[in-house]
């Protein structure tokens, strides 16, 4: 694979970029082709299928009485199979959040140029047990006006665009 100037610029080498580009120094570039097709299993599979339907489903453990999302086939605390499937609401409260000036590749967002900071949040979902929820994004809100306990609601993609993925919910926005 051809080595580009930008690849060299990112390295800590003391060599001059040009020396590498001219082939005066051996360099190897290898982009791994690693592909996986993870089997979701019944719990995550149903969870995703219901997102496609525009609903959030949880699973209940009748021993510790937790209503768990994401759902699971067994209760990791009671060590027993879980019981009923139960639908929960698509509303909840903000447990914790950040105002992020960097994206997932650690790239700087052009905040001064008017780009809105990204606001990831953990949302405790109404109907699920306390502390259980969804890691998602907040939007349609001033990043600096988010507060702990803020009530939010899912903003869904249109039905025809949903594929059974966590991104079928575009983001959560404040209600009231």
């Amino acid at each position: 694979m051809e080595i580009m100037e930008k690849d060299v610029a990112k390295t800590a080498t003391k060599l001059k970029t040009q020396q590498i580009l001219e082939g005066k120094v051996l360099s190897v570039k290898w982009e791994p082709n690693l592909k996986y097709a993870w089997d979701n299993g019944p719990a995550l599979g149903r969870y995703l299928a219901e997102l496609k339907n525009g609903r959030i489903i949880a699973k209940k453990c009748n021993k510790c009485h937790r209503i768990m999302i994401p759902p699971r086939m067994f209760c990791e605390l009671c060590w027993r199979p879980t019981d009923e499937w139960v639908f929960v609401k698509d509303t909840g409260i903000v447990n914790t959040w950040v105002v992020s000036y960097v994206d997932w590749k650690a790239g700087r967002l052009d905040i001064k140029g008017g780009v809105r900071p990204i606001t990831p949040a953990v949302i405790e979902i109404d109907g699920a047990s306390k502390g259980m929820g969804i890691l998602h994004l907040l939007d349609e809100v001033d990043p600096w006006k988010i507060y702990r306990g803020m009530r939010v609601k899912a903003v869904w993609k249109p039905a025809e665009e949903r594929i059974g993925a966590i991104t079928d919910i575009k983001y959560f926005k404040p209600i009231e």
Partner: protein
Amino acid sequence: MTKRVAIIGIGTTGFRATTPDLSYRELTYEAATKAYLDAGIEPKDVDAFVSTAEDFFEGYSIADEYSPDQLGAVLKPIYTIPGDFIHSLASAYMMILSGIGDIMVVQGMSKASNMLTLSELVTFAMDPIYNRPLKESPHAVAGMEMARFMYETGTTREQCAKVVVKNKKNALTNPLAGHGVLIDPDYVLNSEIVSFPLTQMDISPHSDGAVVVVLAEEKTAKSLSDKPIWIRGIGWCSDTPGLETRNWAEAVYAQIAAEMAYKMAGIRYPRKEINFAEVNDEFSYKELQHLEAMRICKKGEAGPLTEMGGTEIDGEFPVNPSGGCLGVGNLYELNGGHKVLEVVRQLRGEAGKNQLKDVTTGIAQSWRGIPTTTGTVVILSN
């Protein structure tokens, strides 16, 4: 006097080419539930857990963080070994010897069917400067080793083919195995060439599954189990990784790992003192090479012994009565787990139609697959 440690519980899902209905979570949960039931324990009784996972095989970086839930190990001592299952077993064994606890759990899982670019993944294990630029298939490494092994020992392709025939036949009567079939040696010899002398049928197909094993210190083991299977010796070893400098004919890593285990077990004549073996046969010739490395056969003897039926279930020294990797499937980091499971089933008299008569000591051996030179061995007695 060193403490004695026994396997008091085993659990598995069995092994199949694909498991599209279950995630790795449910696979391990099933194996763990069965193992705990078998041992008569609950997760709360376990002092520590060791899981086995390779990030690239799972497709997660830091895959070990995903281990606790399905083992009942949430908020308990647990760590993961990125090696073979028997490495994890050794680690748990040492924890008992060192007094950290009396009950340990070891887990391994394969979701090989989920790896879509297996060949690229194995190539990625080769040296980026010396090897990868040559763009050779990882199976070339196995083919070259097979060629050198055959040259130095006089082993024939027909003898290697006989390993495939035997193991795939044994798998037919093992309900846990997923790749049983009745074939003759010609079918193997005439199957598609991959890296001559290696053909498609000389290579183990892959399988999914999970194994969980419960270990206990002697006193606990005797109080919980009426058929504890004792760990008599355990060993592990790695040769140089260099494809340029390694011994291409002999599995030195298996030899040294086995000698470590023999010494611990007080075994001097393995062929006489051990009744049967589950050895790594990811490629047909590997079964023969490993038998010779572990002194179960002399150099050049494993092929003829196999040809004469000496390693069949009713032979003088049964090898891979379960069906081995060829008949059960290549389980990657779980390979050693399957070997241990099958030795325990035999020693307990629970191997069904594949049950061997009057066995008291068995050996389980594993290898980390191409391009590695790492092997593990454990000797078990009832």
